């Protein structure tokens, strides 16, 4: 029998998701035996032409990580969609927009101005910006077009499964992959490699009374290892975030940042966390409430750190 054909691709992301696959460690050998990896630019030299050459639906499953921030990302997404039976949004960037989608609080011009002019280390007197096309004697050179708004994978093509995490944790990755290799698959659209309950379910910290009298940032204190961080005034996205990661950040005494994304029934991860957090403000008077609300640093960035592109509003108004 023929081995299932698998592809990995890397769009707008940090590469962490690629590393996550290597977290399989030795397992990657038997993976290699079980499957036939037909495309993996981060690891081996493939040409897009190879991919274009493949038959429609020739690939059994493609794991796509990274958000869609430029025309190349989008082109690859469409290409892989066409060539794959199953397309998996792998990691928080592909699934939720991830850190790159924080660019949606800005726009192309601001970002370019920042990276090609304003940064103190930049020396660019002629104010040269990347051009999509340039005519040179050798011919026309093109580079992908940079988008104003970062999108999730499923905002540009249909996606069959989602794997959250920034990056997805090792054992979840191997679970997921084995699900595809002769394993049972849930109905299309499911989120794989994560729990249906919030992180609090697997968090070992003790919960007593949910009341917030003061917002504390993790660098301002050494939190009590035993107690719920939220109850210590540290904004922990755990309650509004899928579990499955094994609460590794919390074990490191750091609050959850929400990379595993919204819970199955939640309408909007950020809004949900905002609601939960503010509801337990220990304040009743106008002034006290205002004071506590004002003390929450950068609400948008805090509540949508990994999910702005996937959120209800997706980006800020220009």
């Amino acid at each position: 029998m023929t081995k299932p054909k698998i592809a990995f691709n890397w769009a707008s992301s940090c590469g962490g998701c690629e590393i996550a696959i290597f977290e399989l460690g030795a397992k990657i050998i038997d993976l290699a035996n079980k499957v036939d990896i037909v495309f993996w630019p981060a690891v081996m030299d493939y040409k897009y032409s190879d991919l274009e050459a493949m038959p429609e639906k020739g690939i059994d499953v493609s794991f796509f990580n990274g958000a869609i921030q430029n025309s190349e990302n989008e082109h690859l997404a469409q290409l892989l969609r066409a060539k794959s039976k199953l397309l998996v949004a792998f990691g928080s960037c592909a699934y939720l927009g991830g850190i790159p989608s924080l660019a949606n609080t800005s726009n192309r011009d601001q970002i370019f101005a920042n990276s090609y002019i304003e940064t103190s280390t930049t020396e660019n007197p002629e104010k040269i910006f990347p051009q999509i096309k340039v005519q040179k004697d050798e011919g026309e050179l093109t580079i992908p077009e940079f988008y104003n708004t970062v999108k999730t994978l499923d905002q540009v093509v249909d996606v069959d499964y989602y794997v959250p995490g920034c990056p997805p944790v090792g054992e979840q990755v191997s679970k997921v992959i084995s699900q595809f290799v002769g394993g049972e698959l849930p109905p299309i659209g499911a989120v794989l490699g994560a729990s249906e309950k919030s992180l609090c379910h697997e968090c070992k910290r003790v919960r007593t009374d949910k009341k917030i009298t003061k917002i504390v940032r993790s660098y301002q204190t050494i939190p009590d290892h035993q107690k719920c961080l939220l109850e210590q005034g540290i904004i922990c996205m755990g309650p509004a975030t899928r579990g499955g990661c094994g609460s590794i950040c919390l074990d490191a005494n750091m609050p959850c940042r929400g990379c595993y994304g919204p819970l199955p029934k939640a309408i909007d991860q950020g809004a949900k966390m905002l609601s939960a957090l503010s509801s337990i403000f220990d304040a009743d008077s106008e002034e006290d409430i205002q004071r506590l609300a004002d003390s929450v640093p950068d609400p948008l960035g805090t509540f949508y750190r990994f999910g702005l592109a996937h959120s209800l509003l997706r980006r800020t108004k220009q």
Partner: protein
Amino acid sequence: MEKTFEPKIVGFLCKWCSYAGADLAGTSRMKYPPNLNAMRVNCSGRIDPSFVLRALASGADGVLIAGCHPGDCHYTNGNVKTLRRFRLLQRMLDQFGIERERVRLEWISASEGERYARVVRGMTEEIRSLGPLNWKTTMEVAA
């Protein structure tokens, strides 16, 4: 002669006070613009910020949350929780670039029909002068 922009406003009214207040405005035949459509909820405390974002994302130009005056909540202090959420939500909406006039929290009691009418009038006018929000296109400015 180009047609004036008619704001679409979603209203969440507490059924114990503001919704009754709106009814009173009706019973006393007060007139106000039809731009706000009300939804009857048990308590302003039922309002999840997600609802506000959803309304704006799906095309509303404004959202009104109306509850009982502080201290008068039928459920003791549901409205206080509403206020807590609203204050933080306001800050986040600022970051999203959504004008404060578009999302309002008002205390309207069952006996304040006139106030309800005034709030709807005021909000409609303010938002009309702000112009449409149409968030759908905002989200689509891809390239």
